[in-house]
């Protein structure tokens, strides 16, 4: 009844789709972690305004759906961008989605980093100060390396969630893995087979990665 043989000729296109998914994932993780770390530092800062802003940012992005954020950055923000710069070049779906993911995920990474930093004993920071280090040095050389080590499993778990969430770019028609599978399946008239295949691939990658993270978790335990 099911005919999976038609997936083979579609494999090059599906691979391209997966590459786009992975590129989006990789860039979003890097951008999200960098922005998230900055947000966590701001959140923990002594300056009320700074920590208030960071707190608002995190709460704000955690309370709205990712799809809404994607829509903002795909439909509305490019409009504002073109308006400010006076250019009429379209921003492009990939860039829009990337910015949306970075901004959105940063809120989640920020919470992970914050928890990681707060788990570092205060004596570490005091010792760094006693050695004459400044705030930047203490953070960069003492606190963050330890915090990141503790947080690696959580980072990876969040990134597995993000890997699955990248499929939401379907909403703006970007040809990621899922969307490629959907359109190929429609073209050859076997939408069910392609959908099952797509689901299976997502499952194998996510589940495999989850098992790996569990193993890492044991090794990374400080």
């Amino acid at each position, binding site marked *: 009844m099911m005919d999976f043989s038609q997936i083979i000729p579609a494999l090059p296109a599906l691979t391209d789709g997966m590459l786009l998914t992975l590129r989006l994932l990789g860039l979003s993780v890097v951008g999200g972690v960098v922005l998230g770390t900055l947000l966590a530092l701001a959140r923990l800062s002594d300056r009320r305004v700074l920590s208030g802003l960071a707190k608002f940012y995190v709460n704000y992005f955690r309370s709205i759906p990712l799809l809404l954020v994607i829509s903002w950055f795909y439909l509305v923000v490019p409009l504002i961008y073109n*308006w400010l710069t006076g250019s009429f070049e379209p921003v492009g779906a990939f860039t829009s989605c990337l910015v949306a993911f970075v901004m959105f995920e940063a809120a989640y990474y920020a919470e992970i980093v914050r928890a990681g930093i707060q788990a570092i004993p205060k004596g570490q920071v005091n010792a760094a100060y006693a050695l004459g280090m400044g705030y930047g040095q203490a953070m960069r050389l003492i606190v963050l390396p330890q915090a990141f080590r503790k947080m690696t499993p959580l980072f990876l778990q969040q990134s597995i969630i993000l890997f699955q969430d990248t499929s939401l770019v379907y909403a703006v028609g970007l040809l990621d893995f899922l969307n490629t599978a959907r359109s190929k399946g429609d073209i050859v008239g076997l939408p069910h087979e392609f959908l099952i295949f797509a689901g299976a691939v997502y499952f194998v990658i996510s589940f495999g990665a989850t098992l790996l993270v569990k193993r890492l978790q044991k090794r990374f335990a400080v």
Partner: protein
Amino acid sequence: MNYHWDWGVFFKSTGIGHEIYLDWFITGLGWTVAVAMVAWVIALILGSVLGVMRTLPNKTLSGVAGGYVALFRNVPLLVQLFLWYFLVPDFLPESLQVWFKQDLKPATSAYISVVVCLGLFTAARVCEQVRTGIEALPKGQSNAAYAMGFTLPQVYRHVLLPQAFRIIIPPMTSEFLNVFKNSSVASLIGLMELLAQTKQTAEFSANLFEAFTLATVIYFVLNMSLMKLMGWVENRVRVPGLIGSTGK
């Protein structure tokens, strides 16, 4: 740039019947809440059963629950939604298929798919929370219950679950909020919930900025009020004597 700012757009006629744009948002919010609440009930019931199963001494039962969690947590929500909406109906018996595809309104069949999808998806998460809650209880609790002659079902009913459910309220709150946020995927199969109505308003009125701002505010306020509500519930049912029960 010719953008016509108009914050009064929500009170303007949509041009369809006597509706104003605000009506669309209200209808959309109604669908969002209807999806989220029913999906949450499914998730809570199924997730609790699965969570209990995972902690049972019986290997088969805990294995089944573990497999369920692995499956539903590692396939993207959107893929699951497409499976429920496009694929599963084709495997139903003939009469049910006709009913689902022809007799039901398109909105109703989309609604059923989303609710089932989101309910089963969230159940896997609820299961993990319930399991964590049960496993977090000291072993002495169930041992003491057994020593008093409780049977296994009694241990769960009278000792483990009443405590576990109370200590997992904070993580359950975020799952509850996630259901509302995740319900926005329904817009991708044509259910006119809040996000879909927002996009439609943006398209019809050309007031993109206003439409998306209103939607964002609605989600934000909804989220914050549910969080407050759950905070209140948490306070009410807090287990006396635990660290969390003192202070604020």
